[in-house]
């Protein structure tokens, strides 16, 4: 099974990080444990570690995202790598250069890793299949498909605040259909053995195959919230909606918005998460986003350590691949 999975190299080591699908519990736990080690770099007066000194990481952003790009940039810098930020939204791809031509040019710039953000599902996968074998690829979000580093930072946040996944009921609320964060989050929660994963939202914002993901589906958000340990809000993704799937944002807030009253249905010590940016008054009330149960800002902080972990795990096998290449040549 793993042989055809582009995430693993010929030595069965994690070489790209494209999706949570296909990764087992041990791999996800290894990422979380490694990230735990990186949290202590913030205690030092010099916050860098020399692990990726001399390596070059290229942020290839075919879709705008200040947060994710900044988080990857800071993670790479903390690892002492050089980082290139390449804004492809307004670049040569618009001039008719094909994606593969762009890749060849970037390879010639001697990059060791690509972080890819793209509005098309499967873009990171495509790039991983076509890059030189020594280059590592991280999916920084592709269309409606996956956002695996966001899922891992969410898992890290949950584990830090709540401990073992086996005891937890997690509710994901809102626009599940257009959300790669939800898809990757569900996959990670199921793999890590969460007791129950519930999703709640209007039917028009539910993927058709949602039950097959291993979740319980709720139309009524109030029922879904009862006794939850973790509440994950999602951004209403107006830019990915092709037709009117909800009557209005005001209507959505009335039926699915996270209010202080609704939060009281969850366990008293439940945590509230959101991948950001939050649409206040649309999917979440400001007092909830800024409230005591909110760990939204911690999620951002943990995102650095988690991305450092992923980068250093997949970049750790370069020599092996290079040697195998030399032997073949």
């Amino acid at each position, binding site marked *: 099974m793993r042989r055809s999975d582009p995430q693993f190299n010929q030595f069965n*080591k994690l070489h790209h990080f494209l999706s949570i699908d296909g990764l087992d519990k041990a791999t996800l736990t290894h990422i979380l444990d490694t990230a735990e080690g990186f949290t202590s770099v913030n205690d030092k007066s010099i916050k860098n570690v020399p692990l990726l000194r001399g390596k070059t990481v290229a942020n290839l952003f075919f879709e705008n995202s200040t947060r994710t790009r900044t988080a990857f940039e800071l993670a790479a810098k903390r690892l002492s790598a050089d980082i290139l930020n390449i804004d492809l939204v307004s670049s040569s791809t618009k001039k008719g250069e094909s994606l593969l031509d762009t890749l060849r040019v970037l390879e010639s710039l001697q990059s060791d890793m690509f972080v890819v953000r793209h509005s098309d599902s499967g873009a990171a996968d495509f790039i991983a299949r076509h890059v030189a074998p020594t280059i590592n690829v991280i999916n920084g979000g592709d269309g409606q498909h996956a956002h695996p580093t966001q899922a891992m930072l969410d898992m890290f946040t949950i584990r830090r605040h709540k401990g073992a996944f086996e005891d937890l009921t997690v509710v994901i609320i809102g626009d599940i259909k257009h959300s790669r964060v939800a898809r990757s989050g569900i996959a990670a929660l199921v793999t890590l053995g969460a007791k129950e994963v519930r999703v709640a939202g209007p039917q028009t914002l539910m993927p058709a195959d949602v039950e097959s993901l291993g979740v319980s589906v709720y139309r009524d958000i109030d029922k879904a919230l009862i006794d939850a340990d973790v509440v994950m809000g999602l951004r209403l993704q107006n830019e990915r909606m092709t037709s009117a799937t909800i009557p209005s944002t005001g209507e959505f807030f009335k039926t699915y918005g996270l209010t202080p009253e609704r939060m009281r249905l969850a366990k008293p010590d439940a945590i509230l998460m959101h991948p950001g940016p939050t649409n206040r008054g649309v999917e979440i009330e400001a007092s909830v986003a800024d409230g005591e149960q909110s760990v939204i800002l911690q999620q951002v902080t943990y995102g650095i350590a988690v991305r450092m972990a992923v980068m250093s795990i997949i970049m750790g096998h370069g020599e092996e691949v290079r040697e195998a290449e030399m032997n073949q040549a």
Partner: protein
Amino acid sequence: MTQFSSNDVTGWLNNMQEQLQSLTVADDPFFMIGIRTGGVDVGRHLHSALDLQEPLGQLNISFYRDDFSKMGLHPVVGPSQVPVSVEGRHIVLVDDVLSSGRTVRAAMNEIFDFGRPSRITLAVLVQRTGHELPIRADVVGHSIDVPDSDHVSLHAQSMTVSVGRKAK
């Protein structure tokens, strides 16, 4: 395979304790830091025997190793914990076995990212042959002359030391 008993190891720890006591200055107490995991095990014994007031610092040097591009990331053994400022302090750096010296180099690099100590003293339970860097310990529990192919390891639970062929 040579095995050293916990009695042997206790004797080595006593040697280290005596040498460290002679280093103790009332108005400039040292701050002890162990390298995870073996150095922390040795450090714990010394820390309690010397009745040090400050907590034992712990370094995880996985992110400072010089063999990352060859070996990848080593198993991560918990975060570094340096709860006291190292700036201007005398640091006693503790490890279980000094062989190539690469671990100590990585640990010193990490310590300097926390601050600039006034002095670093290296204390090891076992100093073996096989140095690859100009690094030697100041405080030594026991010295062993062994072939490069042999591996010296501390078993923390039983506090015994074995010397033998490297496990493949």
